[in-house]
């Protein structure tokens, strides 16, 4: 987030307790105006709870939530210019699609005719005009999802909250909805706070991502930042595919950390704040940042034996045994025509990595 962008939602040290269970532990996040922001984390980590607190359905145990410098933690949901696309859509079953979409506008004090007119425009945006007079139960899941989106967008909220809106859709529809959502966000300029447990979806769509686990934000950054520089074990493991190696840090000098991982393997990598000499920590290497060779190369390398090659269409994943730790995965793109060399199982190879590919993790 750049500095000049105003803050739309500022969550300051927010705590949420249900009885003696703490669902959120001092969460602080600032979400910029016009940003596509994603809360990503496994089921039960507190994403919905945080979203419901922003919408006003749950009260805040401690901390504060600001909407453009206005403290909103005490405002009831109907007084917040924030709308929600609910996980189960929560469409009004007794109203037509058009009435559903117009409901928020009507409650804002617009005349019924005006509400209908604007709702009609909204339905055009989500390409559902021909279904305006149907009841929600007469629509498919994907169409219901779009009605829910149109209904939440119609009153032109300052912030739109989306709680796993695509999780009930099939893969293909989901992909196209991801693009459509992103498109609508850009077009309307509304700040989106998007919740998902699907890391791929988060990486595809977001300007910035907050990775959550067990009621805490583990890391906050752009998709690229989080993917390439995971801060800890949880993030490295949750986002994308990675090789995790347990290492001991032997020495840190000249801006390089030297680590060994048993079995005679040694590696140097960039040091990380919070990891000192002698520490036993984890190291993460993405499979696509590695390449294999039969002769040593002028880069960092480990030695291993090929166990298996797995062909997955776009890529070939080679499983290796380093003689220490869990099996190691190396991924090569299927289109590296000239460079791609597939090694047979049982062959001894060098596993090479560019500088910066291996990341030390704070546990």
């Amino acid at each position, binding site marked *: 987030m750049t500095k000049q962008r105003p803050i739309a939602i500022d969550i300051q040290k927010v705590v949420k307790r249900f009885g003696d269970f703490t669902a959120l532990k001092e969460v602080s996040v600032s979400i910029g105006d016009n940003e596509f922001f994603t809360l990503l984390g496994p089921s039960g980590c507190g994403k919905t709870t945080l979203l419901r607190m922003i919408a006003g359905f749950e009260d805040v145990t401690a901390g504060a939530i600001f909407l453009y410098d206005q403290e909103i933690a005490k405002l009831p949901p109907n007084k917040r210019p924030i709308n929600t696309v609910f996980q189960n859509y929560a469409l009004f079953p007794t109203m037509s699609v058009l009435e559903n979409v117009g409901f928020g506008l009507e*409650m804002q004090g617009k005349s019924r005719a005006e509400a209908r007119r604007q709702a009609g425009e909204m339905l055009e945006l989500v390409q559902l005009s021909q279904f305006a007079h149907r009841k929600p139960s007469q629509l498919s899941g994907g169409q219901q999802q779009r009605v829910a989106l149109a209904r939440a967008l119609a009153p032109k909220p300052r912030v739109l909250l989306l709680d796993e809106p695509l999780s009930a859709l099939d893969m293909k529809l989901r992909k196209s909805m991801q693009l459509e959502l992103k498109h609508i966000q850009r077009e309307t300029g509304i700040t989106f706070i998007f919740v998902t447990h699907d890391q791929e979806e988060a990486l595809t769509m977001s300007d910035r991502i907050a990775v959550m686990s067990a009621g805490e934000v583990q890391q906050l950054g752009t998709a690229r930042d989080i993917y390439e520089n995971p801060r800890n074990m949880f993030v490295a493991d949750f986002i994308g595919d990675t090789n995790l190696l347990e290492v001991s840090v032997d020495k840190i000098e000249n801006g390089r950390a030297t680590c060994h991982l048993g079995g005679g393997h040694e590696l140097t990598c960039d040091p990380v704040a919070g990891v000192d000499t002698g520490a036993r920590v984890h190291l993460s290497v993405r499979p696509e940042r590695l390449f294999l060779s039969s002769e040593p190369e002028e880069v960092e390398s480990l030695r291993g034996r090929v166990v298996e090659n797995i062909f997955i269409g776009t890529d070939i994943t080679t499983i290796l045994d380093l003689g220490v730790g869990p099996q190691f995965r190396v991924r090569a793109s299927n289109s590296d025509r000239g460079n791609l060399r597939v090694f047979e199982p049982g062959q001894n190879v060098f596993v090479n990595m560019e500088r910066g590919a291996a990341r030390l993790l704070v546990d």
Partner: protein
Amino acid sequence: MAGGAASGGNATSEAYAPARGWLLLPTWVVLGIVVLAPIVLMLIYSFLTKEFRGGVIWEFSVDAYDQFFFDRGLFGDDAPTIQWAYIQIFWRSIWQATLATIFCLLIGFPTAYFIATRPANQRTIWVFLITIPYWVNLLIRTVSMRFILRDQGPLNDLLQWTGIVAEPLTIINTNLGVQIGLFYSYLPFMVLPLYAAIERYNFSLSEAASDLYAPRHKILTRIVLPAVKPGLIAGCILVFVPSLGSFLAPDLLGGARNFMIGSLIDEQFRGSAGNWPFGAAASMILLTLVLLVLMVLARQQARLEKGAG
């Protein structure tokens, strides 16, 4: 419409088609005995001639209906005039039953809403508590109510003791007495169907409405009430219909001046003062009235369901 699932369903029901007739036989027999036979009997009796010590003479006559609607009689010499006395009793009954239904709704809805929003394991206990008084016979409950409400009864004692009123309130033998009796008799018939409907209500719809700027009263009128309408209509029917024909509450708490149809009919079949054909005719008129109300409600329900698809 020739989808695989649809045709599969048809095939199944076709396979049972020959058996359908006799499988439903017990239902038809029971319905015939408990519903159709009494009504047909009543209809026949309403067109017979009355016998002076109760009972009937098997001779066709429209006297009963004549007596109900016309003063001088349709077959007399003078021009017939409308007999208002019985129509008035009917009118009072409809009015009392409507009022009782409204009171039951006003108290029953919040009660049902309260129960439905308790944690799941507490709801049954609340429903149980609501129904406990109804394990006692209606007659005994109505007599007890008379005891509680009378001038020197516990209610007036309490009101005087707390200084709310100086003189005892006369409730027995007033419209209010009848109202309290009807309300008390039929409240659970309102609460239970409403509770069933509200329990099935998806409360995230209320959240969605609130998210879309609806204040509380709008959530109630625009979202909750339409969603629980079937339960609402069922509750209203279950209170209105028995209230209309009720005779215990009007007799014991309303006295002679607050006569209702139920009492009128009841009287016709008692002792030697009775008039069976007239009682039967009044019953048929009441039945017609109730059917008309139900038909209107049923049509509305059908429209609702058609809308919900």
